């Protein structure tokens, strides 16, 4: 067992798209994303909608293959393996979705839903499977008898617990949680967040936690990766990102969030609309048209990701103040 459970190197995903007989276009959903995740740690992925967070999640659990790039699960390059071995490797990464109700089969009893991954992936006997289901239910704070109920008999928070139990049942190393709290009420959000943190302490699971709620991200994560339009903008330890963010986009996100606006106190200039138009036409930095620090160079040249004091920033003019 190694400490490094998941590492992703220069992963990109391009979708081909053509509308009504027009020429085929490529859409760069993900562009050169790399990160490393250690055992028992949490990597948060933040960004607005359309920034490729969910595409990344799909690639991590093996729902889709990247166009280029490598995924290492426990230091094993998964795309060098045969299809069946690949499947075995991806078994170590499980997913929890945003809307618990639509991710559970309404016709199946909870027990059946939870048993299914065991049926597919293991050789356990029926009796052992039932035991595992009971165990998983208890672990997420539900009772054994809940196994015979249907999803609609549970509240949203309980449904999310069931989804977490389903992710846990194969003893994964990593759980990819795609906005697991956004369909829940605040008081229930806190319950699920606490459950996730308890499970992490107990089982040493790692999380890839996708969220747009910076408050939650600050609370749960060890590292934060900020994305915009499929590109990595900033990546570093949580303290670095929240206390010393260097990328204008991260700063913009922080100062748009009501609870951080007064603590961070970043200044933004108004953006010249002419410059905005120009930036939209040319293919420089993807953030140039919304960036209040952008200059000529930003609209002509794509910035490279550089290392600055243990944190990675994709910007021509990383902020120092």
């Amino acid at each position: 067992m190694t400490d490094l459970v998941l590492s992703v190197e220069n992963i990109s995903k391009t979708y081909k798209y053509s509308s009504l007989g027009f020429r085929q276009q490529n859409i760069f959903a993900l562009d050169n994303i790399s990160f490393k995740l250690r055992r028992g740690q949490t990597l948060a992925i933040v960004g607005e909608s359309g920034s490729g967070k969910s595409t990344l999640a799909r690639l991590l659990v093996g729902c889709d293959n990247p166009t280029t790039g490598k995924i290492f699960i426990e230091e094993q390059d998964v795309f060098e393996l045969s299809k069946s071995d690949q499947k075995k490797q991806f078994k170590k990464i499980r997913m929890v979705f945003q809307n618990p109700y639509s991710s559970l089969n309404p016709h199946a009893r909870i027990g059946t839903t939870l048993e299914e991954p065991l049926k597919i992936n293991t050789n356990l006997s029926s009796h052992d499977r039932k035991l595992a289901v009971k165990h998983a239910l208890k672990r997420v704070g539900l009772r054994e008898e809940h196994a015979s109920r249907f999803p609609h008999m549970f509240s949203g928070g309980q449904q999310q617990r069931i989804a977490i139990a389903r992710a846990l049942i194969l003893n994964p190393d990593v759980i990819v949680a795609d906005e697991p709290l956004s369909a829940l009420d605040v008081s229930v959000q806190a319950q699920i967040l606490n459950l996730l943190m308890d499970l992490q302490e107990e089982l040493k699971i790692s999380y890839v936690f996708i969220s747009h709620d910076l408050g939650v991200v600050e609370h749960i994560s060890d590292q934060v990766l900020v994305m915009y339009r499929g590109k990595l903008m900033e990546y570093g330890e949580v303290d670095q990102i929240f206390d010393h963010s260097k990328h204008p986009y991260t700063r913009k996100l922080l100062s748009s969030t009501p609870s951080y606006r007064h603590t961070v106190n970043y200044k933004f200039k108004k953006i010249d609309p002419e410059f905005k138009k120009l930036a939209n036409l040319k293919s420089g930095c993807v953030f140039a048209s919304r960036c209040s620090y952008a200059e000529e160079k930003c609209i002509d040249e794509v910035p490279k990701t550089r290392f600055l004091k243990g944190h990675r920033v994709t910007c021509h003019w990383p902020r120092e103040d």
Partner: protein
Amino acid sequence: MKLLHIENLSVEFPTHKGPVTVLDKVSLRMERGEVLGIVGESGSGKSMLALAIMGLLAPNASLKADYLSLNNQDLMKLTEEQRKLFVAQNASIIFQEPQTSMNPCFTIGRQLMETIELHGIRRPKKQKQRARELLDAVGINEPELRLKQYPHQLSGGMNQRVMIAMAIAAEPKLLIADEPTTALDVTIQSQIIELLLELNRSREMGLMLITHDFALMSESTQRVCVMYSGQIMENAPTESILENPRHPYSRALLDSIPHIGERHHMGQRLYSLKGTIPAIDHLPVGCRLGPRCPKAAKECVKPPRLEKIDQHGLVRCHFPLEKENQSEGSSQ
């Protein structure tokens, strides 16, 4: 001058098990130009309150109120038709998802002009000019182009701006925003809230902001009503609630949000209420928070009344929290 004055507003729905009360004797007042926040979990009746004020309740709902006045006009004394007209001229509402509140088959311009026509501008040329002005007022660039576009051609934030433009077409005295930013990204969210506050200042328009996001509430509102399963639990100035909530439910809501600077490696856990909000037809006896309340005692089987606490506001609890000096015990 009171903009909105509600005394003991109740809304009931008939079900096969008998009538169910979804709003239970809600009373509140809003001054002209005030920004009032309404917070609570889903199912607490926030949206129902908005719909009741707007007269948009489903036809099988029954509304009772001792007094319900908007802009100094007693709505209960008007006939159905008069009431519709009066409310339309004095109040508007915007909803959570802008895409679903607009008709996808018609252009922005047509939908906007339809609203403008209803409010008395007949000549198409004038309508169009007014539409352009409105789009300008909500900060949409190239209004001429937008008027010809369909809702799906605009982004979520733009659509919400168009909704706001429609809402302010009649120069309402009250704008109800029901979770206006939940479906939008954070950067857009702050723009929309800024726009709403700007309109509130420049037009002296009362704003009722319904949300479940306490952080959002904290910086934009003057007063906050905390609702829980159809009742108002606490009604006080925003500052007092944030610093010193007196109702255990408000406290719990505040504590269940991660605080700034509380990080994972410090091993802290959030405070969370047990269980979930009760179904409206299975309410607990007495205080509705009872089974989930950390402070519940024997007396809580009797329903508490909304009572005044000096230098704070109204609180519905038998054992309101004491005033504390500084945020002690804010997290477990």
